[in-house]
């Protein structure tokens, strides 16, 4: 028998993680939606972001989540740099070349991490936020509550930017028709660069929040990539809200699978549910027919 309190606790845990996953996946969704490039290195940006947060936390002896103040703007600029150096040159290229480039970028990041920090996991030894609060049998991590809260605020801010600002209009127009957008006076290359910067900055934010309780190793990017792809594939067509719903579903499935089946099967549970969904909705949750 499943204990209802344990199930509830898992669902709540899953929802909190789902918020964080949505935040990370939104970066992937933005880049894909605007420039039609699947960034296979997306999860590896999270991994590098996690190491950066860890290094800064160690250096300044603050909780890793606090380092987002530095890592988010830093990764925004790094994202723009990588866009200019690696992505822009292959914009018009064959999909296979684009895939090779972003997959390669991910491996470069992994190798750098392996060379610099080796395979042993790293975590901040004195996290301030890694304690729990309990009420009525339910126990939640304060670090995850804060991560979830900051994630949802960030998702809202991106949603606001996209729907209510002039730059957001340029992003959506470019995403709808990149050939015609310049005829409006929109500088498409600039939209691409900033979008890539924002997408990268979101990975740094997600990573810093995660490091409040988590640990990183050179392969951390794989699970973030896998989760982000499912989330975007299921919900990407629904914009920020689609990514949010789909991230929450993935977070809950992962938590339940991890507790009631086995932690090592958590990604398999998510993917099996995804395959199942595709039987009924081949174009994801938010396709308009």
């Amino acid at each position, binding site marked *: 028998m499943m204990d209802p309190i344990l199930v509830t606790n898992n669902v709540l845990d899953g929802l909190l993680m789902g918020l964080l996953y949505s935040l990370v996946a939104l970066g992937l969704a933005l880049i894909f939606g605007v420039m039609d490039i699947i960034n296979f290195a997306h999860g590896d940006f999270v991994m590098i972001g996690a190491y950066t947060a860890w290094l800064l936390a160690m250096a300044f002896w603050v909780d890793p989540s606090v380092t987002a103040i530095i890592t988010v703007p830093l990764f925004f600029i790094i994202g723009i740099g990588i866009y200019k150096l690696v992505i822009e040159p292959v914009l018009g290229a064959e999909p296979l070349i684009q895939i090779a480039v972003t997959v390669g970028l991910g491996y470069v990041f992994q190798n750098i991490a392996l060379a610099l920090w080796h395979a042993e996991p790293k975590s901040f030894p004195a996290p301030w936020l890694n304690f729990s609060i309990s009420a009525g049998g339910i126990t939640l991590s304060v670090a995850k509550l804060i991560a979830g809260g900051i994630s949802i605020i960030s998702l809202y801010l991106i949603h606001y930017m996209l729907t209510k600002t002039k730059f957001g209009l340029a992003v959506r127009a470019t995403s709808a028709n990149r050939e015609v957008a*310049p005829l*409006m006076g929109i500088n498409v290359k600039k939209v691409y660069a900033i979008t890539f910067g924002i997408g990268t900055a979101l990975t740094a934010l997600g990573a810093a929040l995660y490091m409040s309780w988590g640990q990183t190793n050179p392969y951390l990017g794989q699970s973030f990539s896998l989760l982000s792809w499912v989330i975007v594939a299921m919900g990407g067509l629904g914009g920020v809200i689609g990514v949010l719903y789909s991230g929450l579903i993935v977070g809950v499935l992962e938590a339940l699978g991890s507790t009631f089946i086995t932690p090592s099967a958590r990604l398999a549970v998510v993917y099996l549910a995804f395959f199942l969904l595709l039987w009924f909705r081949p174009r994801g949750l938010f396709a308009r027919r």
Partner: protein
Amino acid sequence: MASMLELKNVHAGYGEFRVLHGVNMRVDKGEIVALVGPNGAGKTTTLRTILNMTTRYEGEIKFQGRDITRIPTHKIVEEGITMVPEGRGIFNPLTVYENLLAGAYTKRAQEKIEDSLEFVFSLFPRLKERKNQIAGTLSGGEAQMLAIARALMARPTLLMFDEPSLGLAPKIVLEVFDVVVKLRDSGVTVLIVEQHVKNSLEVADRAYVMEMGQIVLEGEGKALLKDERLKKAYLII
């Protein structure tokens, strides 16, 4: 008087594929100029080249006396040229209103946005009724009106149309030509590419005929209508 737009010996194409072989054209202020010719002649390529959206090998393009051959597209729009593209190029997922706002993206257009909205809604009252509709759900005629309205939101000095009547019912085709004339009368200079050769020559002050990437004939619109070669080629009755 200096021309508003001037193309001098323009050679252009797509990468290695050359399409235009020395095009010379001009558009004067306040004119409607038509560019006609058979499929694949290079009419769309000419308009795209003016906006620096193709590969240019040789030649010069001047707008209001200024060389614009090396200016990126989005800055040329800021200078005052815009185009209603072939196939309309509506932003389908956006609303009608958002499409219009996108049209007014440039600095020159931003200040006059309220004025412009009023103007395009008076020109196309249908768009006002459908302001909050998703643009992808408009009918073909409505979508063409939106494409024209969106271009007008940019406050162009020179407005280029690429086959605005393509795929429209005859009655709506006439409406489109009415709008073109109205715009010219309101002070916009027009360069129009059209399949409806007869209609366009009737409204055009001057016209160019293009074949295989070169201008083969030019003259006043009404005079060209009587040209025997043209009559034969386009079966104008």
